């Protein structure tokens, strides 16, 4: 009897520690994997951006971001993302509103949301080829316009492979993404608010500018930011369409990765990559902030 009593505290004292250790062991595969394939690559980029070419810390690579060709690439990337985000956000919001006015469980709404889910993922090489088949030099629309109306789509140069073309192509996945992220906010608008506005003598214009507008503004802005980050990080579509030069940051990074011509420039690619992460992180942080604001009223 005395023996068991003496033995009990010992076991109690020993087991929790052992348990904690064995419990941690269960997560080792996950953490090891994520360390090798996510944390180390991230650190490679961050540390590499601040490393000199012969080792040691250096700000040369980060300073190289001030070169005009890199600044131009960032400018073009940001402009392309902003315009495609804006166009996508406006058209996507209109489409989302059109869906909200339809029957909530109707076929129309279900089909369009499902299609939006698919098309928002549609990007990359396949999308580039879809547009080449449509408005490429021998594309369906190009040929049709030429044959029936004698209109040359590319009278002033082949804009499909430049920023205007990229903007158009990006819109193709931006609109569906906007529908997906903006629809929940629109669903949060209660019909009672409109009725309340009307019973107080408010007009439709007043309802949209004073009630629904301010309520939806954070959601709209947040969604637009998400669209911005989406097109800012896109690479494959641009890589498949643009064959000459590297107008965008992702394409500049490709140049830095694949060409080993410029010795002493190895880390500039990492600095550009870090620049991209900074832009995306800032945008995503703002998005999270606006998202919180949205959920206050329209959650």
């Amino acid at each position, binding site marked *: 009897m005395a023996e068991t009593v003496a033995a009990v505290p010992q076991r109690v004292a020993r087991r929790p520690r052992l348990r904690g250790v064995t419990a941690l062991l*269960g*997560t080792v595969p996950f953490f090891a994997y994520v360390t090798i394939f996510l944390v*180390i690559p991230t650190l490679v980029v961050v540390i590499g951006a601040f490393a000199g070419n012969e080792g040691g810390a250096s700000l040369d690579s980060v300073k190289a971001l001030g070169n005009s060709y890199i600044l131009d690439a960032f400018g073009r990337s940001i402009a392309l993302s902003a315009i495609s985000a804006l166009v996508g956000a406006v058209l996507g919001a*209109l489409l989302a509103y059109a869906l909200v006015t339809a029957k909530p469980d109707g076929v129309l709404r279900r089909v369009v949301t499902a299609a939006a889910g*698919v098309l928002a993922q549609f990007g990359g090489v396949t999308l580039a080829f879809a547009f080449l*088949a449509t408005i490429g030099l021998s594309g369906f629309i190009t040929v049709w316009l030429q044959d029936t109306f004698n209109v040359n789509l590319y009278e002033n140069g082949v804009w499909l492979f430049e920023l205007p073309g990229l903007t158009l192509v990006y819109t193709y996945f931006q*609109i569906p993404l906007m529908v997906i992220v903006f629809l929940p906010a629109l669903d949060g608008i209660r019909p009672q608010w409109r009725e309340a506005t009307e019973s107080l003598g408010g007009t439709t214009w007043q309802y949209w500018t004073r009630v629904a507008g301010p309520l939806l503004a954070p959601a709209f802005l947040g969604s637009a930011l998400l669209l911005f980050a989406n097109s800012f990080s896109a690479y494959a579509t641009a890589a498949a369409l643009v064959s000459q030069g590297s107008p965008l940051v*992702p394409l500049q990074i490709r140049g830095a990765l694949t060409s080993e011509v410029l010795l002493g420039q190895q880390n500039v690619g990492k600095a550009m990559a870090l620049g991209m992460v900074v832009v*995306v992180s800032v945008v995503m942080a703002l998005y999270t902030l606006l998202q919180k604001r949205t959920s206050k009223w329209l959650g």
Partner: protein
Amino acid sequence: MAGVTARRARKQRAFRWTVLIVLGVFFVLPLIAMVEFSTRDPSTWPALVDWPELSERYPALAEGITSSLSQAALTALLMLVLLVPTAVWVRLRLPQLRRVVEFLCLLPLTIPAIVLVVGLAPVYAWVTYFFGGSSLTLVFAYTVLVLPYAYRAIDAGLSAIDVKTLAEAARSLGAGWGTVMWRVVLPNIRSAVLSAAFLTVALVLGEFTIASLLNRTNLQVAINFLGKSSATMSVAVSLTALLLAFVLLLLLSLLGGRRKSTPTPFKEPAA
């Protein structure tokens, strides 16, 4: 008042159909154009269905298709093996680690694939050293890439059931941890696991950035390469890949819809 509502309903209907038709044309046109473009050469589609001929005429494309399919299957497998036990384990035994795991899983969302490639290049020098330069080694990078989407799906599935009670009940009846995972938790989150796997497959089939910049091959790299020599064939393959992704994601949304409508026995009250 009734007149106002009727007038508004009419206006809304007109607005709805205008928007739908205009945007519908924008979205359907490229798809129609792909069909038209890929049928300009009548031998394209027959060649695409005839696998022996395809692999003879377009060996790079055939290789891309097989490697993409095996990459998709292996990535889904690795993702599940890595993520499901960890997510369950953290919920049961290490709730204080949940934030860390969530942060790590969602981290790839703020790291564009092109940036990840920059960091992965030195890591892949080692991968090539240990495993060789096979395109299947891309599975390691793809598992990281799909982590946010897969984690969200699985986490949502786990939130919908009371993992703790289920595990305790099974343990008190003498089940080992293996049995708890395989025969108790897994069957309960089957639809979440399925949607994580579907998303993974759809994402891997569409991946281009990492494969192309690490000099490995997959479907998208092959399509891009083919575009330089045979435009019709590359458009036909693009259309097929797109339709495949369409079917996959449509199944996924149907799956999601069904999960919402049939309440599971262990559903928690809405949080």
